[in-house]
């Protein structure tokens, strides 16, 4: 009961932060001179990218924790942060082209940051796929190993893509929107980052609790089977419903 009150309070706070972020981005921040209003997508695009990256980092830390401590709670944290990270990464990949089309004239360019984000997205989708297709009991270990491999890959990906792009003439240059930014714009950016981060934390928390509850439920189902109540008739039905492989 108590935790749900805290959760509701946090949800309200997040809502307020998101509303403030929206206000900052659409009303307070000035319209950009050359790009016009389409530039405002930047207040969602960039904070999403930062949030996604933080989520993946949380996934990495939780996975290491799982391998060391072997507690299912760390695994719940890992899956929650990876899922939310993939969602925010998807937002980045969708809002990027939306902005690029009117500004650069093309939907997609194999720019270093774009490509890195895409590969990051691929890695974590494959991580979620692995979780989904794993056989239940071994899944957390396997997933944790994959998560660590994936995160180790991120700096290498970034470095390689940067070299790759500098090897060739760049077709378009985005003119790094972060440079020479107006203080009001920067304020709007940070306000949105804060709001998105709070939002991500909220969903991760929720997903984490859900996962924990599922784990507990599974454990309770197992316990309810054992031990035998005193004086109860032992069942002989096991023969018919034996699962293959483990015992035969």
């Amino acid at each position, binding site marked *: 009961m108590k935790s749900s009150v805290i959760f509701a309070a946090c949800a309200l706070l997040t809502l307020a932060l998101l509303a403030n972020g929206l206000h900052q981005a659409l009303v307070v921040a000035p319209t950009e001179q050359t790009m016009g209003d389409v530039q405002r997508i930047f207040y969602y695009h960039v904070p999403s990218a930062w949030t996604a990256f933080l989520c993946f980092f949380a996934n990495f830390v939780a996975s290491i924790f799982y391998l060391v401590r072997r507690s299912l709670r760390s695994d719940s944290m890992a899956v929650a942060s990876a899922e939310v990270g993939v969602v925010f990464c998807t937002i980045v990949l969708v809002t990027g082209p939306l902005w690029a089309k009117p500004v650069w004239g093309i939907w997609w360019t194999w720019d270093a940051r774009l490509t890195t984000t895409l590969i990051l997205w691929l890695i974590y989708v*494959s991580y979620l*796929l692995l979780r989904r297709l*794993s*056989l239940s009991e*071994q899944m957390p270990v396997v997933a944790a190993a994959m998560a660590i491999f994936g995160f180790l*890959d991120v700096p290498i990906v970034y470095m390689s*893509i940067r*070299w790759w792009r500098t090897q060739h003439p760049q077709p378009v240059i985005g003119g790094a929107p972060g440079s020479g930014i107006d203080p009001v714009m920067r304020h709007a950016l940070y306000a949105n980052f804060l709001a998105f981060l709070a939002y991500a934390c909220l969903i991760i928390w929720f997903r984490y609790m859900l996962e924990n509850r599922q784990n507990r439920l599974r454990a309770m189902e197992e316990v309810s089977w054992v031990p035998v109540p005193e004086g109860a008739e032992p069942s002989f039905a096991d023969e018919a419903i034996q699962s293959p492989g483990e015992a035969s």
Partner: protein
Amino acid sequence: MSMLSLTRATLGKDLRLEWRSKDSFNSMVFFALLVVVIFSFAFEPSAEESRRIAGGLIWVAFLFAAMVALNQTWAREVRNRVLDAYRLSPAPANALFLGKALGNFIFVVLMEALITPLFVVFYNLRILGEPWLLALVLLLGTWALVVNGTFFAALSLHTRNREMMLPLILFPISIPAILAMVEATTAILTGEGATGPGTNPAVLWLKLLAGYDIVFTSAGLLLFDPILRAE
């Protein structure tokens, strides 16, 4: 019993088994051959153009072919559940991992040694850069593929349809390695940018490959034990 001699024992066992059946090696070589032939239909192998894309083509062919061997690599351990016998023994998990990775490395390098000359002939290639660098790319690139491939094949043992799973989890992680191999190979084939010492792009990519190899070999060695012990 040292780690080294145990690694030698597992490697020897793998080589012996593969030598007896040659199943995965033969399939791998034939598969690589097929890919090379099909690519020649898909991309006109006329001299100038093909040299530009040859680096990409050959590595895609090798990548797909290596997948055949990697998918089979744990099959012989799973048959008769020999892996359980290994788990019962006091031998360190890494001896098995290293032995297997080295075994796969040898098979894939042999396959590449067979297919590369064929590729050169089919695409009428002349290597404009330094050939010894190409050999280095081949070795470092293959190790990058194989060490991760062996590890991820062990991961996919725990999944429902493991043969389908392996490329799905291996390819995203391998993207920087593949990029480095392709770029280095292309730079060597075209002889581009090798104007002075220290500016050769192939060397830059080789450094990246070496870094990738070191990072993921260490990660594999650190994480293989819990994977093997996973029930």
